[in-house]
Every structure is written in structure tokens, then in C-alpha cells.
């Protein structure tokens, strides 16, 4: 009886201490392990994930996605990219590359597919663009503090959807985050200058950048600023030299 009581006392001391310390050590989970994930990656890979090899499996799936890209097997590429991002949602590169593969590579391939009618090609390209956008939006939801994904989404809006307002918005969001690229604020102002009805706002931003000094006075900034001065009919004495 005595040893059993001793064991119970040990457990009574150990368990609350264990639970309290575990709660204090809780960090951001990389994504929960669900039945959906098990169905996506297969049983062997799921067991490997349970064994603590989440990152390694995600890398191997991403390498396989790269092979699928080389073979231009877009469906398989999409599957592998979904698996890799599901397993490792904190890897920025996975989301960025997934968005790029879908919107740029698969989208362009769909548009150049001679076996389909022009309408079907455009529809397929649009689907791939939406897939690319979806990857980037989900990537941002998992990593809201990383500017790279906002930059990628802004490029997608600018180059593929020709939605300058959203491109400007995302470049601006990126420019507010630590580690952002030096061009984010500039690009946001450029994109804003293409938006109907927001010329004044664009002009003010371009002007602010211009006043920061020689480093910001790049040829494109000067051209955009002069174009805005023309459109807003800024008095000659307020214009840049």
C-alpha cells in the first residue's frame, strides 16, 4: 500500500507542475495535424510528421513540386504545393512560390494551350490566377507580420489583375512591416497614381517621397510626379524643377 501511496503523491506533484509549465511554453503552432492533412499527404508521410519530421516532409514535397513544374504537370504541382503549405504554413517561400507557380507559370501555360478555345483558355487562366491569389492570401493569414507575401500579392494584383488600388494597398501594407523592401512605399505611390479619383493622394505621396532627398528621386518617380502635376494642374511655382 505504501509504495502505491508514494507513487500517487509523486504524480499529484508532477502532473499540475507539468501542465502549468507546458501552458507557459505554448508557442504558435505550425498548423494542427488533422484527418484532412492525413488524407492529403498519405499515411507514411503522416506518421513521419507525427515523428517530428514535419519540416523534412514539407521540404521533400516542395522538391517534388519543383519536379512537377519542370514536367509542366500543373495539377500535380497544385497538389504538392497545397500539401507543402499545409504542413509548413510558416515557410514564406512556400506560399510565395505557390502563388507564383499558379498565377504566372500555370496561368500563362493555360493561356497558351492551343488545344482549347480562346474562351476556355481565358477561363482556365483566370482560375489559376485565383489559385495563386488564394495561396498568397492564406499565406498572409498565417504570417501577417511578413512583408514578402504582401509584396507578392501586390505584384499579382498589379501585373495579372491590373487592379492598381489593391496593388497600392498591399505595397503600402508591406512598407509598414519590419524587413520590407526599400521600394514598397515608392511602388505603392506609383500604383495609386493609376487609380481614377485618387490622383491627389498619389501626388501627395510622390511629393513626400521626392522631399526625402536624392536617394528617392529615381527617374520613374520624377516622371510619375510630373504626370500627376499635369493632371492636377499644379501651379508652376509648386512643381518640381
Amino acid at each position, binding site marked *: 500500500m505504501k509504495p502505491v501511496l508514494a507513487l500517487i503523491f509523486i504524480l499529484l506533484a508532477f502532473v499540475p507542475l507539468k501542465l502549468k509549465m507546458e501552458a507557459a511554453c505554448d508557442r504558435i503552432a505550425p498548423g494542427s495535424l488533422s484527418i484532412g492533412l492525413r488524407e492529403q499527404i498519405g499515411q507514411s508521410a503522416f506518421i513521419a510528421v507525427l515523428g*517530428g519530421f514535419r519540416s523534412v516532409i514539407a521540404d521533400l514535397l516542395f522538391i517534388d513540386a*519543383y519536379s512537377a513544374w519542370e514536367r509542366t504537370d500543373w495539377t500535380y504541382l497544385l497538389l504538392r504545393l497545397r500539401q507543402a503549405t499545409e504542413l509548413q504554413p510558416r515557410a514564406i517561400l512556400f506560399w510565395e512560390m505557390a502563388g507564383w507557380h499558379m498565377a504566372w507559370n500555370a496561368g500563362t501555360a493555360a493561356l497558351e494551350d492551343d488545344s482549347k478555345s480562346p474562351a476556355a483558355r481565358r477561363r482556365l487562366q483566370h482560375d489559376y490566377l485565383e489559385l495563386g491569389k488564394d495561396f498568397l492570401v492564406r499565406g498572409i493569414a498565417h504570417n501577417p507580420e511578413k512583408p514578402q507575401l504582401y509584396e507578392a500579392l501586390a505584384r499579382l494584383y498589379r501585373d495579372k489583375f491590373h487592379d492598381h488600388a489593391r496593388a497600392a494597398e498591399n505595397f503600402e501594407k508591406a512598407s509598414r512591416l519590419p524587413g520590407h523592401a526599400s521600394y514598397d512605399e515608392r511602388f505603392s505611390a506609383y500604383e495609386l497614381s493609376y487609380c481614377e479619383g485618387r490622383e491627389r493622394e498619389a501626388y501627395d505621396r510622390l511629393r513626400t517621397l521626392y522631399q526625402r532627398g536624392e536617394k528617392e528621386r529615381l527617374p520613374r518617380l520624377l516622371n510619375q510626379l510630373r504626370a500627376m502635376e499635369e493632371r492636377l494642374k499644379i501651379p508652376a511655382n509648386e512643381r518640381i524643377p
Partner: protein
Amino acid sequence: MSSSLGRIAAIGRTTFTELARLRVFYVLVLFALVLIISSSFLARISFQQELQVTKDIALGAINFFLSMLAIVATAQLLPRDLEDRVIYSVLAKPVRRFEYMLGKFFGVLGLLVISLVAMSILCLAVIHLREGAAVRETMQQLSQSPSDELDHALVAVHQAGANRDLILALLLTLTKAAVLVSLTLCVSSFATSNIFTISAMAMVYLVGHLESIARDYWLHQRAAGWLARTFLAVVAFFFPDLQAFNLSDQIIAASSLSNLMLLKLLGLGAIYIVGYIVIAIAIFSQREL
């Protein structure tokens, strides 16, 4: 007190020597070393993420082989001593059972430290070489770009290379292995064969990586039915959260681990180790040999 420490140290040294003589462990470490070196070649297949793949595979290999070493080395200690009847001659001397258990623990820990040092040196060397190559490639590619863009890219490469978090990840891998040693000692204190201990520990290893999910479900009453809730409670009460010591996700997210969090994790490891060893000693003290 000092004579007790002396006895623990003597048993630890003997355990370490015995384990070091077993060739199977050299094979395990060799496999890990081969995998670490090959990670560098495998990483070249991947596009743009060589350093990340190198680190993931190298850390994964170290984590796996160190955990295997911890379980396999510890699982055969008690059954072999019982089979060879060494334990009777040891415990016939003025050696207490807790000293015997602690000596075994520190003996295996010594083997793990040496194995980890060997694997870490190679891992850091491989990552350092890849980082150097990545810096050269970046400088070449961005030679025409503005200096702030080049600086930005170089900072990103250095962040992805060998850094403080990588060393911390290795330290926490050792902590995880030490937890596994204490838990294996706990299981083998009542087990009758090393096969049973290894099988049980393989299950514990898998469940341990899911403990945080089970705990979360149990604490937030998400599971339906008393049976499921009881099962989750058992997992949350008795199994260690092994995923807490896995830092690779943190490293990939490039979010540095704070000193406070490191201390908390080491504290968590210490609680597990002390807890499981105390339970192991309590069970072993009552075991009829």
C-alpha cells in the same frame, strides 16, 4: 553525500564505457552523419531554398538519431544487467537503487552529448559552407543592384544560415533526448524485456508529438464523450510534450526564440526529467529482483 555522488559517477562511467563499446551506436551516428552530408546535396535539387532544406534535413536527422540512441541505449540497460546478473553484484555493494538509476541516466546522457557534439560539428560545417556559397551567388546576382537591396538580400541569407537559433535547436534536441532517456528508464523500471520497452517508447514518441493537441482538446472540452475525454486526460497528464522541443518551425519562420522562452523550455525539460526519474526510482525501489 559526496560518496553517493562518487557512486553515481562510477556507475555513469561504467554505463558510458559499456555503451561506447557497442558498435550499433557507431552505426547509428554514422547514418546520421551520412544524412547530414547528403542534406547538402539534396538541398541543391530544391529551388531557392537550399539553406532551409539543408537545415531541415540536418536537424531532422540529428533529432531522429539522437532520439533513437536515447531509447535504444536506455532500453537495454536494465534487462541486460538483470540477464547478466550484474545488477545483483552492484546492488549487493553499498549502492542504493536511486544511485544505480541516476548513474545509468548520466551514463546514457554522456553518450548522447558526445554523439550530439559530433553531429553538430558536421551539421554546422555543412550549413556554413552552403551559406558561404549562397552569399557568393547573391553578391554575383545583385552586383548591379542598389547597395541597400544587396544588403537586404545578404541579411536574409545570413538569417537563413547558421545562427543562434540553430544552436538553441541543437540544445533543445539534447533536452528532448534526455527526456526520452528518463522516460525509457521509467518504462524499463517495470518492463521485463527491452523489446517491450522499445515498443512502448516508440508509441510514447509518436503520442508525445501529439500531446499538445490532446492537451488543448482536453482543456477546452472539445472532445465528445467521456471515453475520449479520459483518454485525452491520460495523454495530457502522463506524456511529455515532445513537439515543444522542436525548433525547426520557429527557425523557418525566422522568429527568434527569446531567452525567456528558452529558459521555460529548459525548465519544462527539467521537470519532465526529474518527474520521470523520480517515478522510475519509486517503481524500481519496489521491484523484486
